[in-house]
């Protein structure tokens, strides 16, 4: 369908979609082969297990955007294992490192489930800073849930950015799902409120609401987000709502501030990490897991409809430490 761009990779991917985990690795491997090799490389080398080695590892973790806190945590754990003579060779070290890192991410590996006992529609509200990939994620999420047999509707809550509505409508066409939209500059809360009515009237299972990108430091825009959140509660406060923060994998330590502010404003239930197909390592989710514990629901690895995968901590860390 989108054969005009990168035809080989997308076809390759669809063929590989037999097993979700193997395909996740395929998705990640686009990236990791070139970059995550970093940490793995280090483990392959015949270096002595001394402080220089740990310093070297520390730097690589910092470069992967893990941040000082998470990096120190990991290095300290390794250091004490080495002290206790539990690590004698590189294989064991790799295993320990893998365990330590996975254990940080395990608590946030909580896939998104659609509650069956709540009144419909299940609402997924996508929030985040400008350019994180909210609209694209809306399109991919729609495809994900359609493949699972749910009926989906999209709400064009980004009424600020030029042509954001058109962008979402195109995703709607690609997925063949209805898109509720008003004009640019319309009240986002009203658009989503309308969409809720329409979704309920049409027995739609899931309503995915896009919102305008907003910097977490802009109080008035965060207030607008709270208003949207209130409007959803007003429609029906028994509704199950998933507030998702969409986060660019290339974001640095500022992601912590973003997450805290969005969480303070409306409460964030899940994170989607996008653009992992670059050289960005998304190490920031280690810092986020330690500091906030908010579940990571999905990761995005490309521009196609099916480039969205359920987050799995073991796969993520495996890919991170993969040998070249």
């Amino acid at each position, binding site marked *: 369908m989108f054969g005009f761009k990168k035809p080989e990779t997308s076809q390759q991917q669809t063929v590989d979609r037999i097993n979700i985990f193997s395909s996740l690795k395929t998705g990640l491997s686009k990236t990791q082969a070139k970059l995550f090799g970093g940490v793995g490389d280090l483990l392959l080398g015949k270096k002595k297990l001394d402080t220089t080695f740990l310093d070297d590892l520390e730097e690589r973790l910092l470069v*992967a955007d893990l941040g000082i806190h998470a990096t120190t945590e990991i290095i300290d754990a390794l250091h004490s294992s080495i002290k206790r003579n539990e690590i004698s060779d590189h294989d064991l070290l790799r295993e320990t490192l893998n365990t330590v890192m996975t254990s940080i991410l395990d608590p946030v590996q909580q896939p998104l489930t659609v509650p069956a006992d709540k009144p419909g529609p299940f609402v997924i509200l996508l929030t985040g800073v400008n*350019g994180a*990939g909210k609209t694209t994620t809306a399109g991919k999420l729609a495809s994900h849930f359609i493949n699972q047999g749910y009926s989906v509707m999209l709400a064009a809550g980004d009424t*600020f950015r030029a042509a954001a509505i058109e962008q979402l409508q195109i995703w709607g066409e690609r997925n063949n799902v209805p898109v509720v939209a008003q004009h640019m500059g319309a009240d986002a809360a009203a658009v989503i409120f309308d969409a809720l009515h329409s979704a309920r009237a049409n027995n739609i299972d899931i309503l995915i609401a896009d919102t305008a990108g907003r*910097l977490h430091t802009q109080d008035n825009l965060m207030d607008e987000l709270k208003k949207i959140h209130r409007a959803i509660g007003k429609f029906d406060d028994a509704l199950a709502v998933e507030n998702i923060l969409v986060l660019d994998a*290339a974001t640095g*330590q500022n*992601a912590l*501030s973003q997450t805290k502010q969005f969480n303070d404003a409306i409460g964030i239930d899940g994170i989607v990490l996008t653009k992992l197909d670059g*050289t960005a390592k998304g190490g920031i989710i280690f810092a986020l897991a330690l500091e906030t514990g908010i579940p990571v629901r999905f990761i995005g690895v490309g521009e196609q409809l099916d480039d969205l995968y359920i987050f799995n901590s073991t796969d993520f860390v495996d890919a991170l430490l993969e040998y070249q």
Partner: protein
Amino acid sequence: MFDTLSERLSRTIKDLRGQGRLTEKNIESAMREVRMALLEADVALPVVRDFIEHVRQRAIGEEVMTSLTPGQAVVKIVEEKLISLMGEVNTSINFNTQPPAVIMMAGLQGAGKTTTVGKLARYLKEKEKKKILVVSCDVYRPAAIEQLKVLANEIDVEFYPSEKNQDPINIAKQVLDYARKQNFDGLLVDTAGRLHIDDEMMEEIKRLHDVLTPSDTLFVVDSMMGQDAVNAARAFDEALPLTGIVLTKTDGDARGGAALSVRHVTGKPIMFIGTGEKTSEFTAFHPERMASRILGMGDVLSLIEEVQEKTDIKKAEKLAKKLKKGKRFSLEDFRDQLQQMRGMGGMSSIMDKLPGMGGLPANVNTQVGDKQFIKLESIINSMTTHERRMPAVINGSRKRRIAAGSGTQIQDVNRLLKQFKQMQKMMKKLSGKGGMKKMMRGLGGMGDGGMPPGSMPF
């Protein structure tokens, strides 16, 4: 932005300042702090190493040891290094070329290229009086072309229509021909966001570059980006002869280490920064100002420029004349001033640029500010014209009415009237010669406490 970096460095440097003598040991500990601060600010590791090494070498060198105030000397070295990291001179778009000057954007997805095209077009049109044409070669992202069209329409700049089923190379050829024939001064070309490891897409932008032969190729980068900024910047710099960098979304609280990294890796100047949602929120980048802002020394130059640019000169002159004639400063004048303050982005934006304000906790700034202004304004709006001109007539029952009308308390009305009286007194003093200068000195006084003596350039 840069808040925490500035907070941390301020603290470290304060410690250094207190010490009459610097030993190698306390320089080491200061450098460790600086390293942590830079890493937390997302400055790329190689850049951090280089920075620390440079500062350390000079700090333990002769020039500090022989200095009477070694602490100050280290501060100076850090500042100088920051400035040189961000580029010494402020450069701009090159129009010394056969028109149209072609300016091409390049960058990752979501960096803010399309918005930047709109903002830059407006900037060049309004500040440099250029005739600008914009075009989108982004045939991939849904509605990207539409987005630019809407933006162009909003800022009243000509938009060259392209279609999503066209080849970007063809679009480039056509638009170039059109821009030449129609005598445009500048042609701004938006391109699709692409990952630097996507060979096919990088090949495409190289071909676009060959066709367009831009006089400026700008790398657009998100100021919130982490360590990977260096990889992306390096790849784009290798693929294209970049001439400058645009740093976007600097109105957030990102510490902006990416700015330092990208600049360091490419060696290209940061030309512009995006500072907000509106198309007008876009300014030239001033490395020396940014460096002093990082160090908590404030950015007074930008503030003055902003005051000059955004105050309504006519209104200000009218007010000055009125005051000179011996007439009193009225509540209506007060309201005008409040409105102008808001026009400058409110108190938070002003405080941000004042020396010594960097040390305040992050959210205090916004709190002091803008809501208070709106409240004051609405109180004045709830008064009758007579009351505004003759505040003396406002008695208890009038106060009750005003409070109810503006949704405030009587205490708020009282407070406003008291503030206004003080303002009136101040205005009386100012109405003589050199009034503005005096007022600015008054403003500078707000920064007492944290302000290093002699850093105010007046």
